[in-house]
């Protein structure tokens, strides 16, 4: 079934559970150490796996000799690419966006060539970690080292070393005759650019760069996998989607989907980085040979070197405006690093670049470029934060140049309902103006700054998505209920699922216990990502609960010997509306106790493909103080305002906003992949890859604006992506205010700020 409930419940007052802040149902497990994450699983006879990784950023694999490793006592299996099917290129949709299955296979285990420092070339399973590690040292790989390129702009040069000899740029007509590292060109335009700039009274143009940054989840990738001699497989793993893991494992190993069962572990953070597979197919291949369960856990070094950062970028933005601040034209060109295989978020960046603004004339060009760096993975609002950093920076300069308040210039040019989005469709039920207004009226915005401090403002946009979800609701004999979904809980979604079901049933949230089920125990669900779970899976949960209520009403009608049309459901009980009957209301527990007599167990399962996710907008205000001696930038106050549709569990919505803002602040100030001339990552640990710690941040005030999405039963919009979009620009604009000049190259780390101060005299 495609879709939705047409009559949204939009009014707040009669909601009893939605909008409250109950303790999350999985909370006690997580504060007591009981919760089992990917690395916490142990099976009888389990072997320990280790992966051998390339020390070269680019090399041909001449030969791999595993003889000595296999001969070591305690080694039970050694695999290389030869143990996986050599798959043809095929775009395959496994839960979210399409991936090329051949690229995925080559990323999981290199064949013929290694394309980045850390690329997997072989794996072993042994009776202990020390034996496995010793075995890695006995695998002899002969490499023919090739020239490499890690920087996105250098990779676009016609003289750059080629990663894929046959790669012809897509999206260019006529197609180029020679291969390059440019995988694809994206373009989007409207109106007459030349006329638009001719009408401008002020034009600002600047070029920006951002570095590759990692999602930085604290839990390294981990799994346990087992395969029997007939190919039946079970995988326990920490991911954003057990069904995604199942699909990819089946494809990469040539198994029937029904033979692969994936049991979701608790996931210790993902942020987009766990929307693909790295370890699971390797663990299965090792188990296939050894006949024993195999556990694979990455070290932090492996997480940095071999799993998805997001793109480093180079972006140029030019915007023209009239004296009164109205934008007349905008031109954006963005270059996004994809890593070893095509598929940077350049396309999404093109679509989001100007999505906040009403523009008659614009041109946006995007380039997807491969480099000798790990293949990028999704990271929260993929592609949007970097281009927002550039666009919002130029808008900040325009506002300064024109003497217009930075929120006022965004209100003047910001999109409203009925306007055409820069990416095509007409906006409906959006809350950008409401969000800007809430930011303008917030006490932070009018608070005086201390001498030397700077204040920055920036806006951000994300589409949010819906998609396929399944939910089942089972009523128990005492009137309590279980809600089962296939959506991993990354940030508290179990709580919101239970709350939505409880709201419909008319009971307290603690009467509904949520379960995240394995792939054999619930219908297909796309992965948790794109801020889709509370929207789409929440819709399935709500509909399942409504079906249960319909069943309860029918059973009450049977009990009272009246028609179902004479039964209403209020506050968790059936009320008889039949004037001919003088009967007491029937409670949920009473109806549940009589289930056997009235037709059997009371359950409902709903599978749907949710459409109509509502886009979200955020506006952030950031204050900074700069230590001019050290170049250290301190965030002194931070406020994040966002249209959330309707907050189901406001505390976890605030948490999404605060966490996204903190990640964006880290991206702006300190985080970056540093590559040496040898093409190797130089800072693959948390000491040198500097993520924000508690003492780096102030309280982050999250302000929720609620412009309900009529396509969701309670008005919810996705909330997880938007908050990482504005911070890069908000921080950089604040630094601009404090320094008096703009720094356009992230991160704004102490050495760079210090050097910029030196240059400015």
């Amino acid at each position, binding site marked *: 079934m495609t879709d939705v409930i047409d009559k949204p419940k939009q009014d707040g007052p009669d909601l009893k559970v939605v909008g409250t802040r109950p303790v999350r149902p999985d909370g006690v497990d997580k504060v007591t150490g009981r919760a089992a994450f990917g690395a916490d699983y142990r099976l009888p006879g389990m072997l320990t796996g280790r992966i051998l990784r390339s020390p070269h950023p680019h090399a041909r694999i001449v030969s791999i000799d595993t003889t000595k490793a296999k001969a070591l006592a305690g080694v039970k299996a050694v695999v290389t690419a030869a143990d996986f099917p050599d798959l043809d290129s095929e775009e395959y949709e496994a839960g979210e*966006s*399409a991936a090329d299955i051949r690229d995925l296979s080559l990323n999981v285990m290199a064949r013929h060539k290694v394309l980045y420092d850390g690329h997997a070339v072989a794996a072993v399973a042994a009776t202990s970690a020390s034996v496995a590690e010793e075995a890695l040292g006995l695998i002899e790989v002969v490499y023919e080292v090739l020239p490499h390129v890690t920087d996105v702009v250098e990779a676009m040069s016609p003289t750059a070393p080629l990663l894929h000899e046959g790669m012809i740029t897509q999206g260019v007509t006529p197609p180029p005759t020679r291969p390059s590292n440019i995988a694809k060109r994206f*373009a989007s335009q409207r109106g007459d650019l030349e006329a638009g700039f001719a009408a401008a009274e002020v034009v600002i143009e600047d070029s920006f760069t951002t570095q590759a940054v990692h999602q930085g989840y604290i839990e390294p990738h981990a799994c346990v996998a087992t395969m029997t001699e007939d190919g039946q497989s079970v995988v326990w793993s920490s991911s954003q989607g057990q069904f995604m893991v199942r699909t990819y494992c089946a494809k990469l190993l040539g198994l029937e989907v029904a033979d692969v069962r994936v049991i979701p572990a608790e996931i210790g953070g993902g942020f987009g980085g766990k929307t693909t597979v790295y370890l699971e197919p390797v663990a299965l291949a090792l188990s296939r040979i050894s006949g024993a369960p195999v556990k694979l856990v990455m070290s932090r070094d492996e997480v940095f070197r071999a799993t998805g950062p997001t793109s480093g970028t180079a972006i140029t933005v030019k915007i023209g405006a009239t004296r009164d601040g109205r934008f007349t034209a905008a031109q954006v060109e963005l270059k996004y690093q994809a890593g070893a295989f095509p598929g940077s978020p350049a396309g*999404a960046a093109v679509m989001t670049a100007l999505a906040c603004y009403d523009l008659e004339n614009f041109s946006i060009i995007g380039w997807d470029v491969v480099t000798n760096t790990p293949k990028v993975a999704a990271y929260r609002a993929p592609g949007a934060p970097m281009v927002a950093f550039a666009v919002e920076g130029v808008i900040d300069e325009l506002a300064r140049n024109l003497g217009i308040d930075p929120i006022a210039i965004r209100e003047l040019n910001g999109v409203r309902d009925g306007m055409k989005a820069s990416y095509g469709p007409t906006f409906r039920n959006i809350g950008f103006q409401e969000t800007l207004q809430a930011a303008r009226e917030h006490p932070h915005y009018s608070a005086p700054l201390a001498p030397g401090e700077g204040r920055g403002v920036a806006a951000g946009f994300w589409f949010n998505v819906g998609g396929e979800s399944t939910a089942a609701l089972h009523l128990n004999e005492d009137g309590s209920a279980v809600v089962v979904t296939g959506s991993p809980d990354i940030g508290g979604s179990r709580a919101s699922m239970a709350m939505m079901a409880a709201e419909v049933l008319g009971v307290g949230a603690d009467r509904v216990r949520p379960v995240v089920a394995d792939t054999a125990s619930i219908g297909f669900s796309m992965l948790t990502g794109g801020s889709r779970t509370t929207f789409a899976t929440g819709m399935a949960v709500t509909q399942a609960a409504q079906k249960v209520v319909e069943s309860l009403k029918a059973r009450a009608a049977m009990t009272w010997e009246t028609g179902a049309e004479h039964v209403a459901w209020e506050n968790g009980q059936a009320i008889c509306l039949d004037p001919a009957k003088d009967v007491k209301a029937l409670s949920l527990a009473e109806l549940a106790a009589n289930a056997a007599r009235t037709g059997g167990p009371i359950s409902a399962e709903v599978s749907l493909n949710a459409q109509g996710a509502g886009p979200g907008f955020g506006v952030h205000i950031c204050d900074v103080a700069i230590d001019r001696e050290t170049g250290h930038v301190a965030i002194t106050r931070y406020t994040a305002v966002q249209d959330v549709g309707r907050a189901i569990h406001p505390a976890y919505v605030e948490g999404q906003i605060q966490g996204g803002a903190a990640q964006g602040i880290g991206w702006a100030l300190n985080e970056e992949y540093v590559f040496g001339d040898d093409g190797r990552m130089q800072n693959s640990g948390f000491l040198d890859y500097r993520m924000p710690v508690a003492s780096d941040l102030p309280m982050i005030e999250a302000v929720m604006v609620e412009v309900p999405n009529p396509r969701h039963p309670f008005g919810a919009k996705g909330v997880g992506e938007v908050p990482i979009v504005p911070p890069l620009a908000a921080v950089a604009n604040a630094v601009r205010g404090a320094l008096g000049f703009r720094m356009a190259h992230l991160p704004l780390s102490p050495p760079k700020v210090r050097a910029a101060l030196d240059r400015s005299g």
Partner: protein
Amino acid sequence: MAQVVAVSSDVLAFTGGETRFEVAADTVRRLILALDERFPGLGDLIERRVAIAIDGEIHRNAWGAALRPDSEVVLIDRIGGG
């Protein structure tokens, strides 16, 4: 006749840059079949890479979604997310 606008770079590469079409279709399924007839192979591309915004709401893999005669239909690239 639904008014169809192509924004997706992939679609434009297929239509030789043509951005606006009138298509007689009352569902997404009919729309895709009709576009595929006009540009052979475009249907497959849409199924793999394109989302369809109908009157401002983005649809993906939704053959049954209805188009009204005056519907605004926009073909855009599919969006994933983190």
